[in-house]
């Protein structure tokens, strides 16, 4: 019994002496693995989309930082398990060491795990402002902007507001400030499925749903936001490059054709955007005029009542 105790003690002190050596070896090794992993995360398979909008880029950076740490932890634990399985097979190591635990080691590793999480939490809160707070639009794009007081708003208060309304199984976009309140009275231009936005402009999205829960998501332009009936949710993006087409689709199960509730965001120059909006506005008023004529005709024929019902 006493011999066993002295043996365990000798073992622990050896581990402590070796501990310094192991740390000296494992420290630089894990830093190297971390950097390699964080670097290789930029390969297409292993990272999030970035570069199209500052919020998406910040999220992707945050992801890469966590990914590096995850690879280090995974390789560490994994090699420990595999080494144990290889080294301590019954035929190689016939007598098992009868130990019940080691409080100091236990506490040390618990603190180590906690420390990793503290680091991730800190990095997240450092990165958070660049993900949730919209930046100013580029100076060249001032023509399409208006001031607004609804969140989120860039420091200058100047932004472009687009309302996104989800319904089974298509997205509708209404362009311009006040789009969630007075879209019909103001005869705001709108489009379905394909959203057109100017490059370099901070676009504020007001997201709503008129039936079931949907989720708005363009991977290249940042995270997703649920469109919940009865609620208005907000997000923003700032598309940096013109002449790009970004693909996304509804991310919350919304019914049988959920798979086909896709969304496209076409990025154009501010000048093209102004022209497109004017054209849409004209088309909308033309359509309205046509519908008015038909309505008048139907009312005259007695098919439509004066209140607009058949």
């Amino acid at each position, binding site marked *: 019994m006493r011999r066993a105790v002295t043996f365990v003690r000798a073992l622990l002190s050896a581990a402590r002496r070796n501990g310094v050596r192991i740390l000296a070896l494992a420290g630089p090794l894990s830093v190297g693995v971390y950097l390699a992993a964080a670097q290789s995360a930029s390969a297409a398979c*292993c990272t*999030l989309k970035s570069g199209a909008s500052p919020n*998406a880029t910040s*999220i992707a950076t945050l*992801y890469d930082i*966590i*990914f590096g740490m*995850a690879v280090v932890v*995974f390789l560490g634990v994994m090699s*420990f*398990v595999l080494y*144990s*399985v290889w080294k301590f*097979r*019954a*035929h190689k*190591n016939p*007598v*098992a060491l*009868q*130990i*019940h*635990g*080691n409080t100091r*080691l*236990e506490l040390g*590793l*618990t603190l180590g795990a906690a420390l990793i*999480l503290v680091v991730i939490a800190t990095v*997240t809160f450092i*990165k*958070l402002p660049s993900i949730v707070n919209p930046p100013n639009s580029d100076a060249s794009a001032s023509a399409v902007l208006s001031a607004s007081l609804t969140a989120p708003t860039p420091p200058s208060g100047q932004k472009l507001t687009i309302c996104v309304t989800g319904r*089974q199984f298509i997205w509708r976009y209404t362009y311009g400030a006040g789009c969630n309140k007075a879209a019909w009275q103001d005869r705001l231009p709108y489009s379905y499925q394909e959203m057109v936005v100017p490059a370099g402009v901070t676009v504020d999205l007001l997201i709503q749903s008129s*039936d*079931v*829960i949907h*989720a708005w*998501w363009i*991977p290249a332009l*940042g*995270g*997703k*936001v*649920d469109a*919940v009936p*009865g*609620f*208005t*949710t907000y997000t923003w993006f700032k598309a940096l490059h013109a002449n790009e087409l970004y*693909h996304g689709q*509804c*991310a*919350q*199960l*919304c*019914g*049988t*054709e*959920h*798979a086909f509730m896709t969304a496209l965001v076409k990025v154009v120059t501010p000048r093209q955007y102004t022209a497109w909006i004017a054209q849409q506005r004209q088309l909308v008023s033309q359509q309205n005029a046509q519908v008015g004529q038909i309505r008048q005709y139907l009312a005259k024929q007695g098919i439509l009542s004066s209140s607009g019902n058949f």
Partner: protein
Amino acid sequence: MSTTDHALRPVPQILVHEVHRPRKTKLWLDWVLTTDHKKIGIMYLVLTFVFFLLGGVEALLMRSQLAVPNNTLISGEHYNQLLTLHGTTMIFLFVVPVMAGFGNYFVPLMIGARDMAFPRLNALSFWLLLMGGIVFYATLFYQPPQAGWWSYPPLSSTQYSPSGGQDAWIFLIHLTGISSIVGAINFYVTIANMRAPGMTWGRLPLFIWSILIYAVLLIIALPVVAAAVTMLLTDRHFGTHWFDPTHHGSPVLWENLFWFFGHPEVYIMILPGFGIISEVLPVFARKPIFGYKAIAASTIVIAFLSTLVWAHHLFTAPMPLVVLGFFMLSSFLIGIPTGVKIFNWTATLWRGSLVMTASMMYAIGFLIVFLIGGITGIFLATFPVDWQLNDTYFVVAHFHYVLMGGAVFAIMAGTYYWYPKMTGRLCNERLGKVSFWVTFIGFNATFFVQHALGLSGMPRRIYTYQPGMGWSTYNLISSIGSYILAIGILMSVYNFLRSYKHGKIAGPDPWKGNTLEWYTTSPPPVNNFDVIPRVRSVEPMRDIRLEVEAQTGRLQKTGGSEQFARV
């Protein structure tokens, strides 16, 4: 044989006698009327494995549909029905009740009791589970539910899901919920009151600790979902508007209620798996569990924290930023006790004398896949990253690593470990090991690539996709992997069926176990034990074995493990 002596240690003399009573009823009636915890346990295990195979077939159909872009094998409507059936089956009819099956069989045996505290209540909880399964699968003959196992309103309201399938889903939640609550109370009372003399809380086997906490979590979580689905039912049929946004109801209320149940449910499914791993590893490492107290304590801490993390399922829902921050930090916290467990399991392997049986291989496989599932959980807990990854295939990969790789690998380890006790016969070890490798390879092929799918923007729950999105190759790999996985599982199922008649006779203690279930015959008689030994440590059976060795001074052969243990 090597020079080791541990394979030759003596078997304790086991003092149990089968009580023979002439059976007057028919055999099947005997099973229907039984209140014996072992028979109920077997019925639980057989029934839940049937549901596991049904859920697996549903998964294979979905993977077949997704194997190539623009596939027309399954329509959107049928796909949504399949994903609802698959999720509901695996959670409510497989993983949760299969743990109750193991618990039923082994809780009384491991604590040295002769039955559960309330045997008739025990039978009730089994039959309620069967009724739940029948009510749910009867929808196949009219209209299965198609709003998902989470059934978010308004999609699950009468307007968008008019069929009775959704009501059958609600009925299933109620029936299996009552079944689980009744069972949980039974487990709690049994463990609190019927332990062998000397089995203090500090000597409770870790599997029993996990079942105890499983029971407590069920009692906390299930009433909430029972209330929520009742509210959904009254919304659907009796004119209330709890979740109806057109009448000032809130769909977000449902999301909160559902996940207040749903996240503890995750730990309800995995904690007993942790318990199984904590029993299997020390037996086959021939070494005491490393950090018994730390593992038991971390189970309690995980259970406590699991009630404080539900909103990490709602990071994209309308919620203030400060709430998101709170739930990110609470979700991080739960990683610490989980890390403690992984550390203690790996440390149990260290300097052990590992006997690589099929059960041990599944347990080590569990360590590896669960590690991956745990690490990807950290990505998802970081809410800005979750804004990108939520509702994508990354999440699908994450929770299949935790539930398929975690819980199911633990269930397999447990089945191979306890099969000889339940049937008296050993499984075919070679087939078991082949099955492990096929399952392990198939599992990783299916789910590892799904991380990449999620990162490249493929949402969950879509029944088809267009070519040219960069998803086709990953999906094909995943679908091929799912067939390999299915073959691996079927090999094990075949092994279990075949060994029932053709397996080698196991003897009372084939593995040289540590706990009291090995201190009786295999399978145990109705009364389990004639004499219940006094418990002096966490490993009473090992104590008995060493005592017999010391008294007789004789080395005897064990029940037959040396023929496959390759020591």
